[in-house]
């Protein structure tokens, strides 16, 4: 049988809808394939091929052994609510034959659907009626059909039925539907149920109107509309004097418009808006949006003019009034720390100047209004106020990278300032115990740490991790370093572990060792050698070996032991000053010698001096050749983590 569930709601925040659908897609509908879809006003689950009845089944539940006697049997029978005579004997035990009879699926759904709806996880819920039911927004109708019958239940004071509603203004507010007519009835009433279809409609229409594609905005608009239609509007070209960053932010973040470019990278005086309706024949919506945008642009121009009355350089003291964090004081204090840190990191005069001015835009009207433009506005103002270009660029970029995929600042000064700014935030927060836990990270410290790692690696900055952070913060950064090399750079997790296990100095060094390790890994000798290293480590551990004596060459046995030592010395000397990759290849070449050694030589020699000497040899091998990577961390074929 066919199944249709539609939860009709008031407008659900667009960003929460995909998550809810994912949860609904996992709904158990007696094995039927589940199809989900949504608009801001409805969450929909459809499925075909549900059974009318669940199948009946029987299960033989073993009880006490016959030898346990009648009393035990009686207890077992009582547990199942039957008499001893009703028990079966099976395999020398009293057993109970439990019968489950099939139930009508409709009845089961009557009970399970309210639970499934209740179980949807939302970031923040509300109550709105007497039963106190909590949901993301008020539920106003429910369609629940199995075959041609309603699955009856009541939730939040709403009875399930077979009547849906169309678009708020273009559709009917009472539309009887069946499984077969549901989607087409919605379409007749100006609701495009399929998010995919709405998305395609938006993309096609905005590109026909010349808008610049913007995947995030398309996604937002897909889930903010039931019937999206794009229109193009215009603005006075005089506003193009304002920085493109400001204009784009106003259009995109404040008005959810797409910008239009005349040539690549150059804004044209147009915008594209997506309406939640079928058309704008009289141009009323276009004119309305144009007027709003003009007012917004006027605001921006007003802010720009007002802000120029006080230069960035004259705003430093004003930062005393802007809180950075209650326990960490004002942005003035932060600024002073960052300037000192830039100095400590060897930043030049431009970097120091940029650090001094970097946060001043927080006091400007422009940033108070368009907070996303922090840094960018500072950079634009610095340039306008004749600061050196290197200073302006560093301020402009210093919040970057904003994500793992984002670019790092483009200039050396910008990188130093960005690094110092993020490090200061991390050090400060960790010092007062504001450490991220689980999903809670209110100060975006993970992003800050990620930024530090990305800048250090990608700008090839030669600062040692230990000099930048210690204790808990060092561990936090190490975690982010692992994440970066694994998720962003695609190194295998055991390679990352192996390299970090032999230490973390500068991240450029970590990167070089990792690259070498990944290159040598697939060669024939490598993994077996790694396995041998693991064996050596185990032997040393089991022997409780503590290195005391230097190796005594005299004690070496001729043959595999002396050969191994000879190669060890040769490789050690040859690898010195070599590239990591060359060195790793040399080390891997030891493999036959190591194998032979383990085949022919008894480490656990009877004579203690000989035994200790052998352990010393293995220890030297291990320590000498684990500086690039700790091979024992490598997961070799045959063992899977």
């Amino acid at each position, binding site marked *: 049988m066919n199944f249709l569930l539609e939860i009709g709601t008031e407008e659900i925040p667009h960003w929460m809808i995909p998550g809810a659908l994912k949860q609904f897609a996992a709904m158990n509908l007696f094995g039927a394939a589940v199809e989900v879809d949504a608009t801001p006003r409805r969450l929909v689950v459809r499925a075909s091929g549900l059974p009318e009845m669940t199948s009946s089944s029987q299960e033989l539940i073993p009880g006490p052994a016959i030898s346990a006697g009648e009393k035990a049997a009686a207890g077992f029978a009582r547990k199942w609510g039957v008499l001893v005579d009703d028990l079966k004997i099976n395999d020398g035990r009293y057993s109970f034959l439990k019968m489950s009879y099939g139930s009508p699926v409709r009845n089961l759904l009557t009970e399970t659907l309210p639970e499934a709806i209740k179980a949807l996880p939302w970031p923040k819920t509300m109550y709105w009626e007497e039963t106190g039911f909590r949901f993301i927004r*008020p539920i106003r109708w429910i369609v629940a059909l199995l075959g041609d019958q309603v699955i009856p239940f009541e939730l939040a004071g709403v009875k399930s039925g077979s009547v849906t509603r169309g678009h708020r*203004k273009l559709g009917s507010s009472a539309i009887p539907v069946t499984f077969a007519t549901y989607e087409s009835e919605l379409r007749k009433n100006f609701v495009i149920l399929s998010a995919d279809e709405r998305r395609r409609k938006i993309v096609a229409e905005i590109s026909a109107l010349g808008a610049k594609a913007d995947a995030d905005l398309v996604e937002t608009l897909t889930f903010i509309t039931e019937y999206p239609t794009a229109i193009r509007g215009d603005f006075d070209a005089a506003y193009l004097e304002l920085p493109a960053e400001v204009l784009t932010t106003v259009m995109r973040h404040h008005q959810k418009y797409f910008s239009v470019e005349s040539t690549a990278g150059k804004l044209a005086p147009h915008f594209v808006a997506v309406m939640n309706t079928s058309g704008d024949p009289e141009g009323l919506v276009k004119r309305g*949006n144009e*007027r709003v*945008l003009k007012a917004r642009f*006027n*605001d921006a121009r007003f802010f720009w003019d007002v802000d120029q009355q006080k230069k960035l350089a004259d705003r430093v003291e004003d930062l005393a009034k802007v809180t950075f964090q209650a326990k960490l004081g004002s942005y003035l204090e932060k600024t002073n720390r960052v300037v000192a840190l830039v100095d400590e990191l060897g930043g030049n005069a431009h970097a120091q100047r940029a650090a001094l001015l970097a946060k001043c835009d927080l006091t400007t009207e422009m940033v108070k209004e368009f907070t996303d433009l922090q840094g960018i506005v500072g950079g634009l103002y610095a340039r306008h106020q004749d600061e050196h270009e290197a200073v302006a660029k560093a301020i402009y970029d210093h919040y970057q990278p904003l994500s793992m995929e984002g670019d790092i600042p483009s200039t050396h000064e910008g990188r130093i300032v960005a690094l110092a700014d993020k490090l200061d935030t991390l050090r400060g927060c960790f010092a007062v115990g504001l450490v991220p836990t689980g999903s809670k990270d209110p100060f975006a410290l993970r992003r800050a740490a990620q930024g530090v790692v990305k800048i250090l690696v990608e700008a090839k900055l030669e600062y040692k991790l230990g000099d930048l952070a210690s204790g808990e913060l060092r561990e936090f950064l190490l975690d982010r370093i692992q994440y970066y090399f694994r998720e962003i750079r695609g190194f295998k997790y055991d390679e990352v572990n192996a390299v970090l296990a032999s230490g973390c100095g500068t991240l450029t060094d970590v990167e070089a060792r990792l690259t070498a390790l990944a290159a040598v890994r697939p060669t024939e000798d490598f993994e077996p050698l790694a396995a041998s290293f693991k064996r050596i480590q185990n032997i040393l551990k089991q022997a409780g070996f503590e290195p005391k004596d230097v190796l005594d060459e005299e004690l070496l046995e001729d043959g595999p032991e002396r050969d191994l030592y000879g190669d060890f010395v040769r490789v050690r000397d040859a690898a010195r000053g070599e590239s990591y990759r060359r060195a790793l290849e040399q080390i891997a070449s030891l493999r036959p010698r190591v194998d032979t050694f383990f085949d022919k030589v008894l480490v656990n020699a009877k004579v203690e001096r000989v035994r200790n000497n052998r352990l010393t040899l293995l220890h030297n091998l291990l320590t000498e050749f684990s500086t690039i990577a700790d091979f024992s961390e490598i997961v070799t074929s045959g063992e899977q983590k």
Partner: protein
Amino acid sequence: MDSFQQTLFKLKRYWDERGAIIQEPYDVEVGAGTMCPETFLRVLGPKPYRVAYVQPSRRPADGRYGENPNRLYKHQQLQVILKPSPDDILDQYLGSLEAIGIDLSKHDIKFEEDNWESPTLGAWGIGWQVMLDGLEITQFTYFQQCGGIDLDLVPAEITYGLERLVAFLQGVESVYDIEWTKGVKYADVRLADELQFSVYNFEMANVERLWRLLGEYEAECKELLAKYPDYPDKQRFPVLATYDQVLKCSHLFNLLDARGAISVTERVGVIKRVRDLAVGTAKIWADQQA
């Protein structure tokens, strides 16, 4: 084309027809219609209530000396409270837009997530900003908590930004060009307020005295709050007068803020002082209603 006041009449009539008490503005300074006792106190307790009123709302820091076409020190809100919220509340709301001449089949209406929270009132709710052709015209909120108290009946709060809405209807680009009534512009009525209060709020208000006044109103409020537990006839207790002291404190806080007189470290503390008063008052009101 309707004048500013004609649009107001229509909205008031619309909500009058839906059973709301039409109130006049409250006579103590407030930053938003929500702060009036008609909202802040009436949403508490088990009694249904419907009210609509225009509330001039003072936000000293938003003053722009009358120079910015869209920003005002004192703007006017039409505040509607329907407690409990009827099931068709959003349709009723959309009907009010039709009632003032907006043919919604020709316009683009969107409800965009915007939850409301007031730390000074210990209040929050869930809702949207309503966008008409890209213009935010209304804040719609289902109150969940007020004065730190979970609400018995969830009210719907509709707050229309009247200047914006009428500027849209009249097709003018500056609020000062709105026709208030025939032959009279918004500027004729209100421009002097905007200029003079900006001068006072930003330049002349005596910071020391404002702090002292804040302390005085706070002391009065605290003294009243302290008397309630032992006050014999609870229904006679002047909780409404107590709440006026809270509003005075809140407004003085806003003035001091506009003057740049509240430092980073003080800010959180002062907000908490006002919230404590608001929460204490809300508890007494709820107790009286129970």
